[in-house]
């Protein structure tokens, strides 16, 4: 099998590293790649924002062509599928039949394998938990070349090291996902305005528990004082069907010039968005457009131009949120996109991100000033017992991870057992010393 030498980065298009990239088209070819002498990592949709799915100086294995459905039991709703299947494809095939993934990330371009490796969460975490919770088993090729079917019952340590484990336990080739039944792929959405953070948190506290899905967009360019104002979206599955728009995605065909997304433009965009998007009474919308709003514009990351962008996403426990959120927004400067969600109980994944509390995500064009700002935000997060989401991370340091992820030691023990030679490696795992030793 031939490799292609490519500079790969994450969705933020920063931190590119050269890698020998393989793209197997059959499972048998993937298994052959396990004999590679150099370190390697699997890459699904490449939608992690930083360097999680790049093995610089080693091999990166693209799973995108290993994307078949294997079986579906219409009585129980259990789906078996290859790990390269995307949420978009899954939705396209199954939603019309009355089944959806119980947890879906914000873009359909993520693969099932990537979703497990990051134990992704959606807009319904309080009610439905994170992705791994709904996975009954997965097939994993471990560095020794063995293919194991891993379930909580057969090997809970390996299961929980893989869920959220950033692909470091091996290559996930297939998994069994418990799908959720729905009547129609349509949702009723209310969009409530909030003038400031306090109003927003009140809406979250009082109304979010009454709905299945909730997410808030905060105007990052709002004048001080009104900081934290925005729109809270609350949604539930609807009983009536709605006509979905013809699938037609537009693409950003080239890197935008660096001056396109600037504070003035973003401020205007934010104000317009606020004005047109508020509707307190429920409106019926196709579920696809609610779950994957940004997928209408392919390659939207190119709007940031060649410098790329980063996202800082953290979670703060409920008890500390009232103190932490204003501080974070204060230190946030002018983020281009700010999203707030509530999260519920922690999962069992050792490096799983969610904990009961609030998660804030901030997007910035990349620059040295941004790097400084992210350090500051990280400090505030640590000071309030919160943690950073590894799926979005591009700048954290090893000390951050040690303090934020109490189960890191256990994770490292499992890795030492499963991958003693450290064959699975990403730029992120190197940067954060996830293996526990400087490689």
């Amino acid at each position, binding site marked *: *099998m*031939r*490799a*292609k030498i490519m500079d790969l980065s994450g969705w933020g298009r920063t931190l590119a590293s050269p890698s020998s990239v393989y*793209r197997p*088209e*059959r*499972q*048998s070819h993937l298994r052959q790649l396990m004999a590679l002498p150099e370190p390697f990592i699997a890459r699904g949709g490449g939608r992690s924002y930083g360097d999680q799915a790049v093995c610089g100086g080693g091999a990166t294995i693209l799973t995108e*062509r290993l994307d*078949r*459905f*294997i*079986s*579906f039991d219409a009585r129980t709703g259990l789906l078996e599928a*290859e790990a390269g299947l995307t949420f978009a494809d899954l939705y396209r*095939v199954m939603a019309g039949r009355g089944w959806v993934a119980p947890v879906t990330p914000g873009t359909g371009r993520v693969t099932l394998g990537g979703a497990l490796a990051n134990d992704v969460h959606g807009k319904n975490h309080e009610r439905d938990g994170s992705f791994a919770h709904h996975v009954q088993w997965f097939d994993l090729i471990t560095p020794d070349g063995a293919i194991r079917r891993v379930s909580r019952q057969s090997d809970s340590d390996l299961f929980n090291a893989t869920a959220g484990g950033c692909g470091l336990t091996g290559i996930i080739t297939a998994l069994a996902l418990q799908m959720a039944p729905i009547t129609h792929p349509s949702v009723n959405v209310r969009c409530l305005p909030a003038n400031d953070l306090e109003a927003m948190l009140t809406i979250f506290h009082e109304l979010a528990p009454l709905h299945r899905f909730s997410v808030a967009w905060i105007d990052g360019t709002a004048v001080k004082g009104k900081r934290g104002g925005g729109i809270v979206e609350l949604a539930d599955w609807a009983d009536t069907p709605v006509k979905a728009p013809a699938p037609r995605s537009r693409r950003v065909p080239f890197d935008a010039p660096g001056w396109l997304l600037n504070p003035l433009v973003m401020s205007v965009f934010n104000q317009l968005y606020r004005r047109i998007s508020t509707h307190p009474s429920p409106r019926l919308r196709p579920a696809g457009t609610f779950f994957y709003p940004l997928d209408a514009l392919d390659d939207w990351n190119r709007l940031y131009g060649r410098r790329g962008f980063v996202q800082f996403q953290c979670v703060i426990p409920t008890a500390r949120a009232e103190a932490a959120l204003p501080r974070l927004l204060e230190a946030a400067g002018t983020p281009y996109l700010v999203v707030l969600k509530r999260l519920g109980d922690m999962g069992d994944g050792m490096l799983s991100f969610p904990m009961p509390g609030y998660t804030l995500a901030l997007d910035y064009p990349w620059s040295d000033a941004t790097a400084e700002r992210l350090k500051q935000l990280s400090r505030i997060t640590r000071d309030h017992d919160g943690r950073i989401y590894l799926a979005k991370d591009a700048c954290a340091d090893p000390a951050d991870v040690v303090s934020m992820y109490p189960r890191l030691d256990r994770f490292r023990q499992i890795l030492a057992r499963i991958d003693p030679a450290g064959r699975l490696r990403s730029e992120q795992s190197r940067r954060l010393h996830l293996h526990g030793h400087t490689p």
Partner: protein
Amino acid sequence: MTTTTWVILGGSSAVAAAFARIAAEQGCPLVLAGRDTTHLEVSAADLGLRGAPLVRVLDFDALDFDNHGRFVSQCLENTDGPVAVFLCFGLMPEQHRMQAEFSLARTCIDTNFTAAASVLEAFAAAYEGGRKGAVVVVSSVAGDRGRAKNYLYGAAKAGLSTYAEGLRGRLFASGISVTLVKPGFLDTAMTWGLPGIKGAASPRSCAAACFKAAAAGTENLYFPWPWRWIMAILKAIPARWFKRLKI
């Protein structure tokens, strides 16, 4: 009107797999034919979920000419409706290796040309016997003119293209269309990692163009379309200059 059953020859290749998905989404029954039947069984399950009412997997070895007749009978049993063929198997070994070892060149020629002719002749007999359907042959722009850098593969594909044109003439009286597709660079395992591949089109887009062309009964399709003009120019260069080109 019964839906057309599509027989996908070379079912594990990226373009064939994409074509099978499109046909499945249109609700067509399918026959997946290839050597890696383990792989094809999973593909069959996938295609069933994507909309194919029935998917059969048949063992098909392109180089096993003696069994092609039996294979075609197997494709045609089970249904009286139209049975169409999507021929998309091929082999592109490195030119320098084929020059060093003729047995490899022979396998290349036999796979790309002889095998295709063998299986399509068997289908042709069935079509003349009254079966309805259509034929799509995936050849290559490489067959349009012999170039020093890949003439062995190119020659086999040239043979295949001419064969398809002739077959079209033969089957016209039986109402069967033969669509000849000549792709330029496609983004598949065949071209992955090769230097100098520009503008490789996705397997899905090629498969969609093939499906559309088959439905319309189109005779010839270059994909993507600029290749029609690229090859026209290449073909127009006089031989005394062409022979000097390092392409």
